[in-house]
């Protein structure tokens, strides 16, 4: 079976600094792949290369077997690749509902139908479902900027799921979220995963979160993959412990 995401020999340098030094991996349908690594190990750069925010210096990215290297983020997104960001990225002045409709509206119709068609682009029901699923009903019509940090994180994730993506890349979803909200977020992600058979790639620092959520883990250090395997093994791997503690 063709992997959902295939990264081969990806390299990215900024001037003399090589942030990602030849990384290859595959993501199979329905799995939750965790990518961990110390600060500066190249995780976010790798993400940004896969997602078209950066153009890789070398190497190739394929989605469902189709080469997508250098594709614009908006075109990639319409292919079914969705993401969340490390720092909060909701639209603060739009309501929660509008944030969600926005996240889905460009996936259907044309520029003309988006101008002359329904104001909610026919996504009112889908947005309402997503609001219920992420338990945001009590704040659905508040501006997103007035939500608590944890709620904004939930909304951020909900937005990534709104268009029913094939592949979701989550960049530090647990960052800055308190423990109660973290459990809530993890539980919602798992529920979504089992309900929709979606494929996730998660970058994370919070080990507990990764161990509980992911089915397979890649460890990145200094721009290279140094270990790969199920979470229980990764935790005991001396190379990984060295990479984390040796810095």
């Amino acid at each position: 079976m063709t992997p959902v995401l295939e990264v081969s020999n990806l390299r990215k340098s900024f001037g003399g600094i090589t942030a990602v030094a030849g990384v290859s991996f595959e993501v199979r349908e329905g799995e939750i792949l965790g990518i961990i690594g110390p600060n500066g190990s190249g995780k976010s750069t790798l993400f940004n290369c896969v997602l078209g925010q950066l153009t890789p210096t070398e190497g190739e990215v394929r989605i469902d077997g189709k080469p997508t290297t250098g594709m614009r983020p908006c075109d990639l997104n319409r292919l079914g690749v969705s993401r969340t960001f490390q720092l909060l990225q909701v639209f603060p002045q739009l309501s929660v509902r509008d944030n969600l409709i926005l996240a889905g509206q460009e996936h259907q119709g044309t520029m003309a139908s988006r101008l002359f068609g329904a104001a909610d682009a026919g996504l009112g029901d889908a947005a309402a479902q997503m609001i219920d699923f992420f338990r945001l009903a009590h704040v659905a019509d508040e501006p997103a900027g007035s939500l608590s940090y944890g709620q904004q994180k939930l909304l951020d994730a909900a937005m990534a799921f709104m268009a029913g993506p094939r592949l979701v890349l989550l960049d530090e979803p647990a960052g800055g979220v308190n423990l109660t909200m973290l459990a809530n977020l993890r539980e919602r992600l798992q529920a979504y995963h089992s309900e929709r058979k979606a494929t996730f790639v998660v970058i994370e620092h919070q080990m507990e979160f990764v161990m509980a959520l992911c089915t397979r883990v890649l460890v990145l250090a200094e721009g290279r993959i140094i270990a790969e395997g199920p979470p229980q093994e990764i935790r005991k791997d001396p190379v990984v412990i060295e990479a984390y503690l040796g810095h």
Partner: protein
Amino acid sequence: MSRIGAIALAAAVVAALVLPHFLKGYGIYLISMWAVLSIAALGLNLTLGYAGQVSLAQGAFVGIGAYTVSLLLQAGWPFPIAFVAAAIVCFAVGWGLGYPALRVQHHYLAFVTLAFNTLIFLVLRNEEWLTHGIYGISGIMRPVLLGWSTAKPLAFYYFCFGMMTLVAAGLWWMIRSPWGRAFVALRENPIRALSLGLDTRRYTLMAFAIGSSLGGIAGALYAPLVQFIEPNSFALAMSFNLLLMVIVGGSGYFFGPFLGALIAVLLPEWLRVTEGYYLIVYAAAIMAMMVVCPTGLFGLVERAARALRTKRAPPAAAPALQTDRTRP
């Protein structure tokens, strides 16, 4: 819209329809100017207020519209076609001016558009074969539409007001459509918007093109209103004045430009009693207003409305703000 808002709007519309009957020639000229400049300010509010693209060139588009209409009328074209041509020309030129916005933002973009405005001014002044240079174009006729002559001031005011209403209705529709949502997303976070599938390039160009074409429509009404145009009217001062209308009214508020234009057109006139000092007083008033309400008058209205609401409702109304806020 709230009920109070709807009543205020209805009252404003009735006033705009009835009051002109009690005004003399110059008063009618002024409120016609208000209607015309409101259209240009609505366009700038779309580009700047909603889509977040700084433009200091809206005056240039009013100029392009005014010259297009005047030259085509001189060449014997009927007004409606000249009018549409002005809007189309400005749409195309605005689309072109949008390209720099794909590369530079904020004050850099302000300078690009500022340079563009100067460029247009120089073209209007120096290309005498086309624009008659500093002598301008005079004797611009007001149109006769389906047998209705707009030559009289009051008739022309109603024509301008009607066009303003049409433009406002169209814009209202657009702001409420998915496009409006996309424009706000462009202003608030273009990178996130791009990652959600928004073709930010296309929306940026659209924001510029549509905003500019509204400038062109305003120009196409400005020329027959004043019946004389010359390059100086469309120099930077006009662009700054339109920017002022948007900011004073409330950038990103739908009704902001109407209020801003009203103040920018009427305040200098009311201040004429101070004679030689009126520009000084006007400038001071604007500065004071910006200190008191940097989000413009509609920002002030919203703040007051929110204060009233929280006073009425007990604090339980805002649970969202109190839970688990832990920043990294």
